[in-house]
């Protein structure tokens, strides 16, 4: 019985490892071919390169203006997320501390807005912001607040239900005004859920292509997805450069994942079972 069990486990272990390798194979193919010459990719697609060349990376790095592009993505994501976290937490706090019917209706409005897919508001949105000359980097951050606040308020609201009102009252007696209560007492207590909200938003904003392509394309503030798309159009069938560009673009995400893996997986599963 025991022997049979350990044999079974060994088999399962083997299956798991094979499946894991299969799962990683697209990344493997991307990386090894990024080190090959244009010609070698066609003669030797699956094996390690005969001679490793770094030229593809240097050129892709230059063509993508990678440092600048990376900074654009970083600034856009970090500022948008700071805005989303701050204003959503504040709104969720106000809604959770007001039990009136109107407050319930407003909360419902935010939740209902989650049903609206991006494509159904995209065209009037671009037209409206175009008329106000707001199709730029700052306009984009504001749009992310509009699209990101619903889920964020929803998650904050759930967490705020667990924070007793007596805490607010005690702080008020000590002389805090409403904003001070929020800033000094409530916000620090919301830290765990803030991590979740931040992670869910960063995955989406960092990778977003369609909205930035409509709002900031060609304005000199291209993010990684935008630049990569242009780069790809320019170098169709030049896979040695394209794959090097893809590899460079993925590295920051992988580093982030390996550093914050626990929080990411926790955040994603919390966000999914909403």
């Amino acid at each position, binding site marked *: 019985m025991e022997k049979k069990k350990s044999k079974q486990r060994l088999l399962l272990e083997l299956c798991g490892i094979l499946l894991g390798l299969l*799962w990683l194979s697209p990344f493997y193919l*991307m990386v090894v071919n990024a080190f090959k010459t244009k010609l070698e990719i066609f003669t030797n697609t699956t094996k390690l390169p005969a001679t490793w060349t770094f030229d593809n990376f240097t050129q892709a790095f230059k063509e993508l203006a990678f440092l600048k592009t990376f900074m654009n993505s970083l600034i856009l994501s970090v500022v948008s997320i700071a805005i989303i976290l701050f204003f959503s937490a504040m709104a969720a706090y106000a809604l959770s501390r007001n039990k009136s019917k109107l407050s319930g209706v407003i909360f419902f409005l935010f939740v209902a807005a989650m049903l609206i*897919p991006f494509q*159904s508001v995209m*065209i009037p949105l671009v037209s409206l912001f175009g008329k106000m000359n707001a199709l730029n980097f700052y306009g984009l951050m504001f749009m992310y607040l509009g699209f990101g606040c619903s889920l964020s308020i929803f998650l904050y609201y759930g967490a705020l239900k667990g924070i007793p009102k007596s805490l607010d009252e005690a702080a008020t007696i000590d002389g805090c005004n409403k904003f001070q209560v929020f800033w000094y007492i409530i916000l620090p207590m919301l830290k765990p859920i803030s991590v979740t909200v931040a992670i869910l938003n960063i995955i989406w904003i960092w990778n977003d*292509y369609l909205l930035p392509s409509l709002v900031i394309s060609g304005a000199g503030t291209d993010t990684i*997805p935008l630049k990569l798309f242009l780069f790809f159009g320019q170098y169709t069938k030049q896979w040695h450069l394209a794959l090097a560009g893809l590899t460079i673009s993925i590295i920051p995400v992988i580093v982030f994942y390996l550093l914050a893996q626990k929080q990411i997986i926790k955040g*994603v599963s919390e966000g999914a079972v909403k």
Partner: protein
Amino acid sequence: MKNKDVSFWLFLAPVLFALSAVVLIPLLFGVYYSFTNWNGISYTEFLGLDNYVNVLKNEAFRNALWFTVKFCVASVIVINIMGLGLAMLVTTKIKSRNILRTVFFMPNLIGGLILGFIWQFVFVNVFSAIGKATGIGWLQGWLSDSTTGFWGMVILMSWQMAGYIMIIYIAYLENVPGELLEAADIDGANHWQKFRNITFPLIMPAFTVSMFLTLSNAFKIYDQNLSLTNGGPYDSTTMVAMDIVNTAFKFNMMATAQAKAIIFFIIVAIISLTQVYINKKREVEM
């Protein structure tokens, strides 16, 4: 905080303003524009339902819708079977379970655009190289017709999302009480009986969550479609989201595109509301 408190409204003002300007007002305008001959800037005529009639008669849109529906069905099935399978694998006591979780989830963090480009290389170059070396015919010519384009999209989507769905199933699987399974062991139940009669009923809620998540994600897919096939060959793999974007920003038919967008909204809303309804019903039953 009370309704008449200034602070209540001050706390809400930024998000209310953003949500209205970015989502609610554009949606209302969008509904209205879809009944006119709007060209993106102005309109001269109120057309009633004409745009909708044209859209529903439009073959490109109907093809896109049909392709999307087929894609959703295939993806939902494949992703859920794979997600559950992976979750069951990594909740066994194998040594590599933690690293495997990391590996399976990884594609989910990377943008659809990038993943699509990687798989374009895999399908076109790697598949044909392997096909040539081994003489397997069906590995040739991937993404050059609508069938391989379709399965290419399904494979890409499954690879990206299975790890995500796995995480959801893991959460539920880890809540299945060990005593129940042990008791079944003592009663002489085999693996399949234990799964069928204990695990499966207990993870049913995960099933609903995962199914709808996959469904709505698959229905709204755009980036992967753009980077893997770009709708080709001959628009045969264009999905609804891409059709809307193309109608608006390639062909500049704004009112038509907006009518398509409203139909898109209605379908997505129906999917989500069905899920809410099922969840509510289950809560009552429990």
